[in-house]
């Protein structure tokens, strides 16, 4: 076989330095990271990276910050497996490996001029934050922006300070809810599923795009509410979670019928995937 033009080192991670680690919730931390070669990550909102710790392997993690915020980027990481447990033991000055950015980002040109409903649940707020920050930094490019966020409990609410700032900002309409508020927690906000936040909304379907990022159980219920409000499938955008082992469409773990979530997604328009078995 003659020459095939290959990117060299498809599976070789680039070294990155951790600048800061902050607790988001009892189970989630935010890692502020930069590449040690000084190059920007070069991502767009909605993309992910393969985070690598030698001896622990790799895991796909969404980028939680906007490229408009400079060369440093942030990763919100839930402690859930061996790699993320090891990651939670790291601190500023430690290093980790990164491959990427990978995947199809949010279609920003298509969102321009539209009113946006940014709906996230649980740690889905981390990738959504990348888009929210982008909208914050490019205020003239988008219409009215509504942020809807649902968390398991007040303690497991991510980015509390930023949510408070978005609530206070004239730029956003920001509404929060928690599934339950156990006694002993200081919380005076709404209690209920995120679907309860949608019926009171008023929006013009022809000029609105909804973006949904959250746990798998959330999608069908939220989509049903949005459709009840008249929003068609091509105006609903979802970012799907799958087990992406390679990030480059080779390992086969993230297929949705003929699509590879890591390459064709993770961001999809609903009409692209709603009829595919197992997508939602």
């Amino acid at each position, binding site marked *: 076989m003659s020459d095939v033009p290959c990117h060299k080192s498809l599976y070789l991670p680039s070294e990155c330095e951790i600048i800061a680690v902050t607790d988001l919730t009892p189970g989630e931390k935010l890692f502020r990271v930069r590449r040690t070669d000084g190059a920007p990550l070069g991502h767009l909102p909605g993309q992910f990276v393969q985070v690598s710790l030698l001896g622990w*392997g790799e895991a796909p993690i969404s980028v939680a910050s906007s490229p408009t915020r400079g060369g440093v980027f942030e990763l919100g990481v839930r402690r859930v497996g061996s790699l993320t447990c090891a990651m939670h033991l790291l601190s500023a000055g430690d290093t980790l490996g990164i491959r990427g950015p990978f995947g199809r980002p949010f279609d920003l040109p298509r969102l321009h001029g539209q009113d946006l409903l940014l709906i996230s649940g649980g740690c889905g707020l981390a990738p959504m934050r990348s888009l929210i920050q982008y909208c914050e930094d490019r205020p003239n490019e988008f219409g009215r922006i509504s942020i809807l966020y649902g968390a398991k409990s007040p303690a497991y609410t991510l980015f509390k300070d930023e949510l408070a700032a978005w609530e206070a900002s004239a730029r956003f309409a920001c509404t929060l809810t928690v599934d339950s508020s156990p006694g002993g927690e200081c919380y005076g906000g709404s209690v209920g599923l995120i679907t309860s936040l949608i019926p009171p909304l008023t929006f013009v379907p022809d000029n609105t795009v909804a973006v949904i990022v959250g746990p798998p*159980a959330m999608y069908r219920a939220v989509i049903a509410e949005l459709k009840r409000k008249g929003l068609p499938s091509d105006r609903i955008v979802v970012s799907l979670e799958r087990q992406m082992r390679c990030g480059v469409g*080779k390992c086969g773990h993230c*297929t949705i019928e003929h699509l590879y979530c890591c390459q064709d997604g993770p961001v999809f328009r609903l009409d692209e995937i709603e009829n595919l078995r197992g997508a939602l």
Partner: protein
Amino acid sequence: MRVLTSDRLDRFFATLAQTWELRLPILLPDGTRVIGSPDDGPIALLGIAILSKPTAAFFPQQETLFTASGGVLEEPLAPPRPLFVLGFTPRDLACLRFIDRFFADGWCDDIYFRLRQNSVVAGLSGYCGPGGTLLPPAGGDCDLELFWDGNSWLVIPYSEAGEAIVAELPDTAPPEAVELFRLAAMTPPDENEIVIKRASELLRGDRVPDSFWAEIGDRCIACTGCNLACPTCTCFGVQDWRTATQVERSRMWDSCQLDGFMREASGHNPLGSEALRTRRRIHHKLAADPERWGEISCFVCGRCDAVCPTGIGIFAVARELVARFG
């Protein structure tokens, strides 16, 4: 069309070994054949079907992605000499063509092409199928093809590399052998090929109910033999191996028939039942790949049916599916 007689095979391979790292059909002590190094056993171009996937020459069961030692990451080197791989049947060559395209598309997989690039692939056809059955000529998809007419090998080059390799062989193919080659090329599709195409149509037309996959799934014992034998199965997992001095990150074949194949960190599992996993195995080859790549990715080699202990290889499932739904 050149000719290679059996008594000249050893010399032919010895000459090739000066330039290439040879992978040839080898007879193992247990009577099976594999594509391996001549050091592994006697060369056996004729005999029973080779059940291990021939594409493993370029996509081995486990291979290193990189090693890390003292903060330095090193990728594996290309082999000192490129591979010469003989033993692909015409159907196997179609499989290789498919995975070449798969690994080159989008993000080009440098680890695969580390072995595949500059390699020479030689097909085997003619009366060298199991029990001396006829394998129709490939007519391409390889650098050269060896066609057994029952007495000697006709050697047909298809690439510059193939031309160079056969240049020293006598150009004395007897007319009756050439005619045999021509007739063999006109062999009509066999029954399995027709059934696979029909099953693909039914799947793509959404004519197969979930209850069918539940029945087939009940027969699966998750041995993963189908995936491990299939030349177009390319799924892999990635893992780190730690020793006292280094970390090795490698990839290893994985199987969509295992419960954890798609399970996500959240616990959500898009393939959480035997029914869904069995459907995925068949649907991927016969419906998803045609949608993505424009062709069915089962090339009717028969390996999964040969290795499946419970009789749910792709031919068996396709036959049942066609009998019941179309």
